[in-house]
């Protein structure tokens, strides 16, 4: 596949790809309606192409991409499960896609019902009291949850809690969200089992700490076995416990954050609940809280009374709004449809299978790569390519070689506490045959690293483009196309 020209390079003066109705109101010159000094002189350089040009351009671009529909995508912590097609059709129904957010409540009862019921089902799945669907993504949910934490302490007249504890294995968004919420971030060590170091937690959990952010299972794919103790330590000192739901695909119907003692939970509908990742969004990051924290949820909250759904804005303790309107509604629709398609048994089976698949790959690969924490994993696990690195082949090289074997690479170099990390999350939507093929490729690459390292270091060799110079991109930023002068 050769290089695809930029759409601007395909452009030819005078070509069009649109058709609009003729102006049916009396023609007036623009200058008579808008003061001439407000009118633009230099036209924006938008493309001039025909519809055929446009379609072929974007189809050709799509063919340079790899998605879940293309093949196995074991990107750790991202839960790249299959995205059901019917859910796309449903979200596109005119009665759901062509509804204005400010329409009279009477005319949006269907939308509100979907939001209300999705909130209720997510509350049941997480064991929380109430769920807000407003945050647009996981990190946005984290920010919302942390603002709720701050508002809660403040409402108790406690304004000294300016610190947040975050494990060293946490997603980068955790500390970043805490900073955006105005907190100081304190890192907590992991112990030799890959869990939170309880003694260090106890020492750090002082009365200037607002709470602890925890992912469970954590980013190593390991369940925090001492979660009850952790919860006690945090709560005894007046702190709150925050659940990063990025890894919730391991626990549906098996255990619930609410029962583990978490006060605030965010979920990623684009991970656990099968809504597509869209090449980097849109996602949706609902936030669930305990009864005690309900007053602080963002407004409006969808409520139900006397046979009618309505938006409740009258929430004096609310942290405010984190987004315009009510959330990424179409994404919520797809998650709602997914939950209804799966039912209670299906969701549980999804989590069980995700965990089974991850353990299967882990067992098969631990002879060939270092497994830093050799214990049962949940829906994902982390290998280290440190042995391979010693002979000059890095985790990145292995990732790139996997592309040659037809797979999307795992997450690499994360979590930071594992050297040369390869974070593998198969999800439940892969067959044993696919898992076996992936295992086989990984074993072959381990052999190649030992016997023929150049093959791995020069990978990928089968793609439309070779390894790209990222240093050059950052040093000499070209961030847009420019018309030649």
């Amino acid at each position, binding site marked *: 596949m050769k290089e695809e020209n930029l759409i601007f390079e395909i452009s030819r003066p005078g070509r069009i790809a649109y058709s609009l109705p003729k102006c049916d109101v009396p023609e007036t010159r623009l200058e008579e309606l*808008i003061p001439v000094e407000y009118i633009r002189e230099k036209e924006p350089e938008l493309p001039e192409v025909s519809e055929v040009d446009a379609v072929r351009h974007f189809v050709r671009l799509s063919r340079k991409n790899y998605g879940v529909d293309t093949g196995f995508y074991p990107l750790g912590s991202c839960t790249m499960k299959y995205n059901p097609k019917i859910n796309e059709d449903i979200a596109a129904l005119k009665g759901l896609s062509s509804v204005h957010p400010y329409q009279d409540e009477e005319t949006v009862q269907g939308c509100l019902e979907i939001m209300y019921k999705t909130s209720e089902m997510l509350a049941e799945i997480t064991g929380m009291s109430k769920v807000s669907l407003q945050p647009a993504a996981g990190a946005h949910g984290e920010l919302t949850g942390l603002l709720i934490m701050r508002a809660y302490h403040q409402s108790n007249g406690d304004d000294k809690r300016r610190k947040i504890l975050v494990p060293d294995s946490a997603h980068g968004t955790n500390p*970043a969200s805490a900073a955006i919420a105005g907190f100081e971030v304190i890192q907590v060590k992991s112990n030799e089992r890959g869990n939170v170091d309880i003694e260090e937690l106890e020492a750090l959990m002082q009365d200037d700490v607002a709470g602890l952010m925890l992912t469970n299972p954590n980013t190593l794919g390991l369940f925090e076995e001492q979660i009850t103790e952790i919860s006690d330590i945090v709560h005894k000192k007046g702190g709150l416990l925050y659940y990063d739901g990025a890894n919730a695909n391991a626990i549906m119907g098996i255990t619930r954050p609410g029962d583990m003692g978490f006060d605030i939970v965010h979920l990623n509908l684009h991970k656990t609940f099968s809504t597509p990742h869209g090449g980097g969004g849109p996602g949706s990051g609902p936030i669930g809280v305990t009864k005690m924290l309900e007053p602080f949820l963002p407004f409006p909250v969808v409520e139900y009374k006397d046979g009618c759904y309505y938006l409740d804005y009258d929430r004096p303790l609310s942290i405010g709004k984190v987004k315009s309107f009510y959330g990424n509604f179409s994404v919520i629709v797809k998650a709602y449809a997914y939950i209804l398609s799966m039912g209670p048994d299906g969701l549980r089976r999804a989590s069980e299978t995700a965990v089974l698949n991850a353990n299967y790959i882990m067992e098969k690969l631990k002879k060939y790569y270092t497994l830093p924490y050799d214990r049962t994993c949940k829906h994902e696990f982390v290998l280290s390519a440190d042995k391979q690195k010693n002979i000059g082949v890095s985790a990145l090289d292995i990732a790139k070689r996997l592309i040659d074997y037809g797979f999307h690479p795992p997450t690499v170099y994360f979590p930071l506490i594992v050297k040369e990390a390869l974070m593998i999350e198969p999800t439940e939507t892969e067959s044993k045959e696919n898992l076996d093929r992936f295992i086989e490729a990984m074993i072959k690459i381990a052999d190649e690293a030992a016997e023929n390292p150049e093959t791995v270091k020069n990978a990928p060799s089968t793609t439309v483009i070779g390894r790209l110079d990222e240093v050059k991109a950052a040093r000499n930023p070209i961030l847009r196309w420019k018309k030649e002068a």
Partner: protein
Amino acid sequence: MTENFRYIPNTPEQQEAILKEMNRKSVSELFSDVPEELKLKRPLNIPEAMSELELEKHMKELASKNANTDEYICFLGAGAYDHYIPSVIRHMLMRGEFYTAYTPYQPEISQGTLQAIFEYQTMICELTGMDVANASMYDGASAAAEAVLLACGHKRKNKVLTASNIHPEYTDVIRTYTKYHGISVEQVAYSNGVIDLSDLEKKIDTETAAFVVQNPNFFGAIENLDEISRIVKNSGALFIVIADPISLAILKPPSEYGADVVVGEGQSLGNSLSFGGPYLGFFAATNDLLRKMPGRIVGQTTDVHGNRGFVLTMQTREQHIRREKATSNICTNQALNALAATIYLTLMGKKGLKEVASLCVKKAHYAYRKLIETGKFVPAYSAPFFKEFAVKLNSVNSGKSSGNGGLFTLKELNKKLLKEKIIGGYELGRNFPDMDDAWLIAITEKRTRDEIDKLVELSNMEG
């Protein structure tokens, strides 16, 4: 494990085979690290699984409980607009390679997404006139809030002024984001629909990090950005402009007024209304601010063979590298919505976008003139407007109570219109007490003369 599920390929037999290979007896063994007392000992209390047929029927029933803009004529805007969406867009978005991929961490197999974002960044720069744009934010409101945080960080100052006539929800979101940073957010008054320049002059000082203005503003009026910019630049504050991307086809780009950051809601560009989301926020800035920008940015580079290619770049700003020192916490953004915008701007192109904008202006002015001619409404301001305008119920010229002859309120009028399958304008009194009688009407290129005449006719009837 007895049942088969359509999204889970492994059969119960295969699951058994896997367990056996691992020397495990049951799946429950894999959960022995979950403390027994924390295990859920009952099925989740959610409805039983539905077949695809049942699901589709159920969802259609829910959808039918809503009024939609396909069957109703929509004059409602206020931050979300009923523009035409060309058919090509959905066909392209539904390419599985686009919508089932994630963030392009592996550029060799993500050139489609990366190149499309590069094209998107270029288009946003062309529209706004700015040097650099990122790959998208959650929406216009959060983009504005991030711009404020950027300004405060960049200027090391904690005072921000926002125009009181920006979208009220943007004001809300800015307040939420800045709440715990010790940033004071003060509002500048409007008069006659647009920024009160003397109030701006009075409130802005050398301690001000930024001034945020929306153009056209929430009332649809076009601000005098030239005058505003002069005042802002004199104080040394950053100039943040919230812009309507469609208007930029005919209005002078904010860059020409010295804007430092331009943000806005990109929904109008090929994205459906979808009851408020997902939309996309665009974010563009001057080169000076590049390293402080939030979000993903794509750059051009070469591969080992010297071919042109695209990668995520300037990543040292981002959370996965910088953690608590990142410029923002944003990770997943609105990539597919940005792709829709890219395809929209490609299809409309240089000529088409201008035509869309002109149609909006002309039809909006026609509707405005016709509504005023009824005598039931008076202008809410005298400033020029683009596709949206506000009129007030006429309470001056006639009778004492409501004065509009028919004794109706805007609420009643909107209810009446709804019966005729018309979604009327936004009641500005919801957010602006002094705009109690003002009706905000949005006219896109989709509205026909007949539809506008019908709105005018119904608004002109008694009671």
